[in-house]
């Protein structure tokens, strides 16, 4: 284990320190006293590297990351997993807006709530197929312009005065799948998406991801699975195909 005290360290220096540790073949890196440093894990490629963060990391955590695992033992801010290619991010707390922005591969697990626009323009291609599991509730515009990948929303922190998600759900969605535990008010959906039942194949995927989620956060798997899941999918792969040019 290689420890770095991040207290008062400027984000560029901290990220350079991390890269240097990796160059020196450290695989298990622990950062202490992190407070708002941007871009931690940005662009890192090594699949065997694990970075544990104590404190609140700054925006764009794991941006362009392609392999490592990041564990956050606190809340995370905006833009985690921005354009991430591969690897895993686990947040033991809440995350901010635009989680998994344009994410292209790998996995993100968030224990509690996320802000607005989770998985905006998340995408997939062949073997690149990202998965995001959100344990709590989500803000509005979830899955906006989503083009691929899997988003699972569990709503475990849901209360009477705390909605599962917000309006403009899946606006402009044209690929990928959103699975929501306990159903969703169809009025939240914009015109481009519909709510249907998941297939048997898809339930297997949900079960395996929820299992991993429950193992990470020490949550009773059976309790999570006691509610039905619904699937939100796009009606078409080109929702705006005829917006400007009248189609045939």
């Amino acid at each position, binding site marked *: 284990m290689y420890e770095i005290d991040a207290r008062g360290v400027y984000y560029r220096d901290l990220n350079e320190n991390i890269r240097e540790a990796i160059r020196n073949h450290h695989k298990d890196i622990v950062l202490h006293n992190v407070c708002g440093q941007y871009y931690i894990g940005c662009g890192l490629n090594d699949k065997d590297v694990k970075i544990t963060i104590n404190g609140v990391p*700054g925006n764009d955590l794991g941006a362009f990351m392609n392999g490592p695992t990041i564990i956050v033992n606190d809340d995370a801010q905006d833009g985690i997993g921005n354009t991430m290619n591969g690897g895993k991010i686990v947040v033991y707390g809440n995350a*901010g807006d635009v989680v998994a922005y344009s994410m292209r591969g790998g996995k993100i697990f968030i224990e509690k709530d996320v802000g607005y626009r989770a998985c905006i323009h998340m995408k997939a291609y062949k073997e690149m197929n990202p998965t995001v599991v959100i344990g709590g509730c989500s*803000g509005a515009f979830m899955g906006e312009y989503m083009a691929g990948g899997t988003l699972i929303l569990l709503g475990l922190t849901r209360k009477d005065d705390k909605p599962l998600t917000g309006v403009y759900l899946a606006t402009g969605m044209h690929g990928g799948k959103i699975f929501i535990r306990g159903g969703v008010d169809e009025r939240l959906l914009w015109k481009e998406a519909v709510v249907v039942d998941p297939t048997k194949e898809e339930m297997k995927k949900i079960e395996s991801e929820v299992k991993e989620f429950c193992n990470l956060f020490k949550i009773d798997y059976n309790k999570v699975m006691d509610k039905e899941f619904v699937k939100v999918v796009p009606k078409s792969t080109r929702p705006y195909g005829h917006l400007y040019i009248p189609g045939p």
Partner: protein
Amino acid sequence: MELAKDISGCGIAGFINTDGERISGVDIVDAITLMKDRGNGLGAGFSAYGIYPDFKEFYALHIMYDDEHARKATEEYLERKVHIEQHGGMPTRPIKKKRPIFFVYFVQPREQSTKGESEEFRIEEADEFIFKLVMFINENIDGAFVISSGKNMGVFKGVGFPDEIANFFRVDEYKAYCWTAHNRFPTNTPGWWGGAHPFSLLGWSVVHNGEISSYGANKRYLEMYGYKCTQKTDTEVVAYLLDLLVRKHGLPMHIVAKIFAPPLWSEIEYMDEKDKELYKALRMVYGGAMLNGPFSIIVGFRGGMFGLNDRIKLRPLIVARKGSNVYMASEESAIRYIADDLDEVYMPKAGEPVIAMLTDEAYEKVYGSKERTYV
């Protein structure tokens, strides 16, 4: 070539002790400086409430002058218009750049010498009197700008990074029960001393991250009520709209939030009849006061602080509480940097106001009166 990235986007922060305990400026400077990279050195500022307890009955005018000529012209005007209890240069430390001069005046309206003037500047309407005075100076006296004009509060702002501006104005030496701060990344308006945030009028102060795309519409709306937008920056309209809607129209703050960031028509459709009627009426009557475009703002006012996002939440805002302290900031880390072990961390929804007020006892302690006003 060195690759560099500008992490654009202003930063805002603020906190209030709802028991009215006054805290030095060190914490707010630390919080906003942690988000230094959200600005680019072209503007920073602070507003502080409760800093002038010895002059709490007087309007504290913080005035920025380009030169001595502007100061003379303004002081001549002030002497004609108001009783000046005390005045002087604002305490500053040296700064290595060309900068305006700053003076503070503690004033009260006084009887005007002519009948015409007394009708225009009515002594029994003190807030309106000071409002007209501020508008006159900002519009008509070249090189003079009133950057704040409330009682027992003040604004400190200029061109620079937050730590630089804080050091210049000796912000660490003031004690306030409520502080707000701004770190600027100007996008489409100039980075000049008067264009730094907070924007302030009477008790109102506003720090803002984002862009008020409706600036032109808001400006024209405000002009109908005598507000002159002279600071070349969109955020100015927010301070004036607050003054218009709360002080003049008597609207409660949570309704003002729904005027600034109204629900979309499609959301109104799903409301029950009573709400539908209310929100339709607000949109119809106060269309000119709606703020379009992305924003998160922290508003300081006499006795409280409130935070608000635009209606589709295009800018960040985090609220937290620890005991009787309420914090707001663009990034959670800025709050955690000055207050650990928070009781509660919350991300407000789009258009959802978060309002933190002094307790009744604290309000009386700070302002010496039981009756609340917001300016």
